[in-house]
């Protein structure tokens, strides 16, 4: 017992276990499949948020173009699903049956060559991660080698997001344009639109997200994590200790890109389509705020931040659509001005000392684990939104 307890305390895994319980047990029991599917969708943004924790919180590099990777991952998945949905039988109404509908609308008469490999699921899954990571590598290698950092990097990632959006929209014969790729139906014959499939996908998604958190936590606890933190404060010292600082940043950027891409692919599977509205600048910045609200240093906090903002968005846009933007604005400004470390920081600075005071008599004092992910601060905060949504649903 004590061994487990120690393990939980040491790595800050306690909050992880709580999150896992919430995602895997509480949500599925408390929500109907419609709400659960929504949560699943939010959690796909969680991948981006934890990627940003690694990149921004740990690496000190802010990217305003994470939507690019989310989108690329999503598109790679969507291409496979779209091809499967476009068998000659169900597209016989087209002038060229057997190719995706949007190609037919744009007078393409044959499947473009670079689409061919996406007929294979293993290739598509490989591409989901490989394409975004490769792009991330090319972009970041060039820039970090030349010491482009901070604000400049953020602005260039924005430009990349803009370029990709314009490209996707402009090349609609190959990409589906503004509409994106819609009407995705089956994965190797398995209908992803049924309630059963949505449950399965939700658990796969939650599992992957928890796995991703563990992976990132492991990286944080490795020397690489120490170096990332060290670089953020004393970049020159790290460089003059013989480390190739730029490669560490490239790694963080590629890691964040790969995670975002997995999120994108899971988004496509759960929502049933992919569109360029995720690639652009606005969604990319929104994803940054998910991480900022949760706490840019806390993996678990970032997931809570994502859930909280999205629950808020859904709730407010249903009830007070006009207020939503004001609330979003207030969140941005408030978090930046008052709680730079987000909910996790709030938990560290207020809730934890309070809990400690209450317990101070019995339990031994806990060692402060500097960047420990926050635990129960967020769910407490999220409760009003949650209960409003959950009430009356069948369990």
């Amino acid at each position: 017992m004590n061994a487990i307890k120690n393990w939980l305390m040491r790595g800050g895994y306690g909050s992880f276990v709580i999150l896992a319980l919430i995602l895997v047990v509480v949500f599925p029991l408390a929500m109907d499949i419609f709400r659960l599917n929504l949560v699943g969708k939010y959690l796909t943004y969680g991948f981006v948020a934890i990627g940003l924790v690694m990149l921004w919180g740990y690496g000190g590099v802010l990217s305003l173009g994470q939507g690019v990777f989310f989108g690329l991952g999503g598109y790679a998945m969507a291409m496979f699903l779209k091809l499967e949905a476009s068998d000659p039988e169900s597209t016989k109404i087209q002038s060229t049956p057997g190719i995706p509908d949007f190609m037919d609308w744009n007078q393409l008469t044959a499947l473009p060559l670079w689409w061919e490999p996406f007929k294979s699921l293993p290739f598509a899954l490989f591409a989901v991660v490989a394409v975004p990571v490769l792009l991330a590598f090319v972009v970041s290698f060039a820039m970090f080698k030349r010491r482009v950092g901070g604000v400049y990097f953020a602005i260039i990632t924005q430009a990349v997001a803009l370029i990709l959006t314009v490209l996707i929209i402009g090349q609609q014969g190959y990409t589906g344009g503004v509409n994106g790729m819609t009407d995705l139906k089956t994965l190797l014959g398995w209908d992803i639109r049924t309630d059963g499939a949505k449950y399965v996908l939700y658990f796969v998604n939650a599992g992957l997200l928890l796995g991703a958190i563990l992976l990132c936590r492991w990286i944080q606890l490795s020397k690489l994590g120490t170096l990332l933190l060290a670089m953020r404060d004393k970049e020159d010292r790290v460089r003059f200790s013989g480390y190739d600082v730029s490669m560490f940043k490239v790694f963080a950027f590629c890691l964040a890109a790969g995670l975002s891409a997995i999120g994108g692919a899971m988004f496509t599977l759960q929502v049933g389509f992919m569109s360029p509205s995720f690639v652009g600048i606005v969604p990319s910045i929104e994803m940054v705020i998910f991480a900022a609200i949760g706490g840019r240093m806390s993996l678990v906090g970032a997931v809570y931040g994502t859930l909280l903002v999205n629950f808020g968005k859904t709730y407010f846009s249903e009830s007070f659509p006009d207020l939503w933007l004001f609330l979003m604005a207030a969140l941005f400004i408030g978090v930046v001005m008052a709680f730079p470390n987000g909910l996790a920081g709030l938990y560290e600075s207020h809730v934890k000392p309070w809990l400690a005071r209450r317990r101070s008599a019995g339990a031994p004092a806990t060692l402060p684990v500097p960047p420990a992910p926050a635990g129960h601060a967020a769910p407490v905060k999220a409760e009003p939104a949650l209960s409003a949504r959950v009430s009356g649903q069948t369990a």
Partner: protein
Amino acid sequence: MSNTDFVLAIEDLTVSFDGFKAIDNLNLYLDRGELRVVIGPNGAGKTTLLDLICGKTRASAGSIKFKNEEMTRLPEHIRVRAGIGRKFQTPSIYENLSVFKNLEVSFPRGRGVFGALGFRCDDEVRAKVDEVAGMIGLADRLDMEAGLLSHGQKQWLEIGMLLMQDPELLMLDEPIAGMSAKERELTAELLLRICRNRSVIVIEHDMEFVSRIAHKVTVMHQGKILAEGPMEKVQADPKVIDVYLGH
């Protein structure tokens, strides 16, 4: 000059910022095991010289050879791995990490991305940390957060972080600035101890300290070398006196 016994051979080194020559056609040779002190008035180009050697600044012209290998075009981390260590003027340590972590991170293993991922703190690392910590007098402070150390201790820690890598050339920019007399004394001893098996370049203003540690002194002025030699000789040089007193 091709192959030499010098650990460091700098020839015709020039760097200019928008036409202003901070280092102007400079030549400097450093022997193995030598402790060289560079002195000179403010703006003479001392720190710029160290920046050029370690790669922080790129040379406009000239050559820097370390153990007969051309360094001028190499990136900083490669120069460090070749054996050049640099300490900055203000103590540059990881304040949020423990002393132990500070030293551990500086251990020259697992320097690539995946190497760092797989790095484990084994006995070899611990032994090295203990050894260095003993040298810099922080053996009993290993678990302390580095930010809580005194100013002098921070300076020593940074030197210790360099020692973790066993560099063949160690460059220290004003290591005793802001130290108490007692700390200066300890630092001088430390420097004399560590230069036994490596070369050291020190930038310093404190003449008493300089005369205590220096094997040889180089006087810089306006990006050029004004004089070079043993302390007594340099101190007697009328050009040097002129530069120091004429201003």
